C-alpha cells in the first residue's frame, strides 16, 4: 500500500521506527526541528527535512507542518511515535483527510479513549472491570457533587476527563475537602487540557500498575501480548517496567487479556494499544487506554519475540495479523529502566553535551537510544536519553543482567537516573516483586530523610 513513511517524532523512538521501516523495505523520511539535525535517525533516513525551529509547538506538535512535509516528500504514511501528536484525534483525522495513512487507530477510537469518561463507559459495556467511580462527569453543582462523592466513597481521586498520563488528578480524603479540590482540579484541567470536565474514582491505597498490550488488525482480529508491571513510578512517571507482573496468577492475566482483546473487537480498534489497570487485593480496575505505541513496548517484545512496531506498520498497510493468540507464548522475564538526563535524586533536568557514551551489551541486553558521541541533549524536549532493557530466563536472571548492565553503562557530561535505578535493583521490596505504585516515592522520601540524618 504505502512505501514511504514519515517519522513524526524524535529521539530513541524515531530511531526505533526507522529500524522497523527498514526491515520491511519501506522508505523513511525524517522530519526534524533545527535542534535535532544531528539525530541518529536523521542521518540514517532516506530523506530528511527540517520543518521548524526547536520549540515543539513549531515543529513536532504542528499538524500542518507535518502533513505538508509528507506531501512535499512523497510520504504516504505518518508514524506519530509516542507523545507529541500520537493521541491527538484531530491530527489523526487531518492525516486521513489529506489522503495519508495514520499509523495508529482511527481518529474515532482515539477520541473515544482520549475522553476518560467515555473510555470507562466503553470498557464497562465490554465487561472490563473499572475503578468504582462517578457515572460520567462530576456535577458542577456542589450539593449534587457531594452526593455522588459519598456514593463513591472516600478516599477518592478527582481526575480530568481530558487528562491522562498521570496529569490532572487530586486525592480527596474527606468530604469537607471536596469542593475546593474539585474547583482547583477543574481550573487546572481547563488550562492544561481545554476541558473542565472531571470525574471521581475510589482512591486505592496500595495498588500496582498492570497493563495489557494489545494488537488489532483491520480484519477484526485482536490479540493481547501479555502484561507489564509499571508500578515503579515517581509523580506518575514510570521509571522501571517489567513483564510478566510478579506474583499475579497467569489465569487472572489471561482472563483480563482476553477481555481487552474482546473490547478491541467490539470498539473496532485497529493498531497497537495498551489497557492500563490498577491491581489491588486480587482485583483489576481499568483506569485508561493508551491508543498508541508506548515507551516500554520493548519489555513485551523481549518476552514474546514479536516486533510491535513492525506489526503496527503491517496493520496500517491493511494486512491481517501474522499470528494467532495461541502463538503468543511469553517466555522468560524482561525489565526496562528508563534512563533520563536528570539528577538521580532531585530529578531536575540535566541538558548538556554527552562527552562519553558507552552502552552496555551482552546476552539478553538491549539498548534503545539515540545517543552518539558528543551528542547535546537539548532542553526543549523530554529528558529520555536511553532505555536499557534486559531479558532473562527468570526474574532473578533478568535482575542480575540489569545490575551488570547498569554498572557497565557509562554516560558522562549529563546526569542520569542510573544511580537511582542501580540502587533499586538491590532494594528488598523491588527484588521481592509486587511493590505498589507508592513504593518508589516512599523509598525516595525515606532515603531523603536518611541523608539528612546522616
Amino acid at each position: 500500500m504505502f512505501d514511504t513513511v514519515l517519522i513524526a517524532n524524535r529521539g530513541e523512538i524515531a530511531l526505533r521506527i526507522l529500524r522497523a521501516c527498514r526491515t520491511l523495505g519501506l522508505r523513511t523520511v525524517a522530519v526534524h526541528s533545527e535542534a535535532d539535525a544531528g539525530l541518529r535517525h536523521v542521518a540514517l533516513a532516506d530523506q530528511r527535512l527540517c520543518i521548524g525551529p526547536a520549540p515543539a509547538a513549531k515543529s513536532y506538535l504542528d499538524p500542518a507542518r507535518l502533513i505538508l512535509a509528507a506531501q512535499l516528500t512523497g510520504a504516504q504514511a505518518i508514524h506519530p511515535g509516542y507523545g507529541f501528536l500520537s493521541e491527538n484525534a484531530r491530527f489523526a483525522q487531518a492525516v486521513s483527510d489529506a489522503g495519508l495513512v495514520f499509523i495508529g487507530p482511527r481518529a474515532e477510537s482515539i477520541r473515544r479513549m482520549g475522553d476518560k469518561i467515555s473510555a470507562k463507559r466503553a470498557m464497562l459495556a465490554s465487561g472490563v472491570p473499572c475503578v468504582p467511580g462517578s457515572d460520567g462527569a462530576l456535577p458542577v453543582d456542589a450539593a449534587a457533587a457531594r452526593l455522588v462523592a459519598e456514593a463513591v466513597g472516600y478516599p477518592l481521586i478527582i481526575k480530568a476527563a481530558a487528562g491522562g498520563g498521570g496529569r490532572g488528578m487530586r486525592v480527596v480524603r474527606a468530604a469537607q475537602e471536596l469542593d475546593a479540590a474539585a474547583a482547583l482540579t477543574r481550573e487546572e484541567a481547563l488550562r492544561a487540557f481545554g476541558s473542565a470536565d472531571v470525574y471521581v474514582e475510589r482512591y486505592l491505597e496500595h495498588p500496582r500498575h498492570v497493563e495489557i498490550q494489545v494488537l488489532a488488525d483491520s480484519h477484526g482480529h485482536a490479540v493481547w501480548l501479555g502484561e507489564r508491571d509499571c508500578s515503579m513510578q515517581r509523580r506518575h512517571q514510570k521509571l522501571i517496567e517489567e513483564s510478566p507482573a510478579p506474583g499475579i496468577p497467569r489465569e487472572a492475566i489471561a482472563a483480563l487479556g482476553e477481555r481487552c482483546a474482546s473490547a478491541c473487537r467490539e470498539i473496532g480498534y485497529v493498531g497497537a494499544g495498551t489497557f492500563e489497570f490498577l491491581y489491588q487485593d486480587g482485583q483489576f480496575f481499568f483506569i485508561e487506554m493508551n491508543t498508541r505505541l508506548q515507551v516500554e513496548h520493548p519489555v513485551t517484545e523481549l518476552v514474546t519475540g514479536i516486533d510491535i512496531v513492525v506489526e503496527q506498520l503491517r496493520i496500517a498497510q491493511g494486512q491481517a495479523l501474522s499470528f494467532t493468540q495461541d502463538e503468543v507464548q511469553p517466555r522468560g522475564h524482561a525489565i526496562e529502566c528508563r534512563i533520563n538526563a536528570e539528577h538521580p535524586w532531585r530529578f531536575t533536568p540535566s541538558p548538556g553535551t554527552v562527552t562519553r557514551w558507552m552502552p552496555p551489551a551482552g546476552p539478553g541486553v538491549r539498548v534503545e537510544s539515540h545517543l552518539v558521541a558528543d551528542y547535546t541533549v537539548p532542553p526543549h524536549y523530554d529528558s529520555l536519553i536511553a532505555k536499557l532493557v534486559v531479558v532473562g530466563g527468570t526474574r532473578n536472571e533478568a535482575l542480575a543482567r540489569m545490575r551488570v548492565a547498569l554498572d557497565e553503562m557509562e554516560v558522562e557530561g549529563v546526569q542520569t537516573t542510573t544511580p537511582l535505578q542501580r540502587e533499586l535493583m538491590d532494594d528488598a521490596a523491588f527484588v521481592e516483586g509486587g511493590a505498589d505504585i507508592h513504593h518508589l516515592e516512599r523509598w525516595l522520601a525515606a532515603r531523603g530523610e536518611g541523608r539528612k540524618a546522616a
Partner: protein
Amino acid sequence: MIEAADLQRLVQRLQAENVTSFDCEGPQGLLLRLRFAPPGAADPPGAIDERLQAAMQPANGAAAVLKSPAMGQLCSEHPLGAWPPAEPGQAVTAGQVVAFLRLGELVLPVTSDRDAAIAARIAADGALVGYGDALFELN
C-alpha cells in the same frame, strides 16, 4: 540572536547614558557583554564604536548565508512568472524578495535580511529545502 540594527540602537542608548559595562543573558545561554570606554574619552555619545561596527559586519571577504524561512520547494521565479529572479552578482537590499518557496498551494517570499550582493546560489532551483537550510551566499 540579536539583530544588528537592534544592537546598534542598544549601544547608542547605553553610550548616551554613559554606561561603561552591560551584561545580558539571552535564550539558550547566549551572553551579550558590552564594555565601553569611560565617559569623556574616545567617541561622543551617539557614535558607534568602530570595533563594534566591524564586529557587526562580516570581515572582508567572508560571506554570510541567507537561510530559508520555512520548508518548501525553492523557486527562483514566482510560479505566476510575474517576478524576475535574483541572479548571482546582483545587489539586493534588506527586505527585497530574492526567491520563493512553494508549499503545496502556498507561495512564500524569501527576502534578504541585509543589504548585500548575491555571491552564489547554494540550494538549486526546484530543490526541496528545509527550515533554516542555506539558500544563498551573500557578500
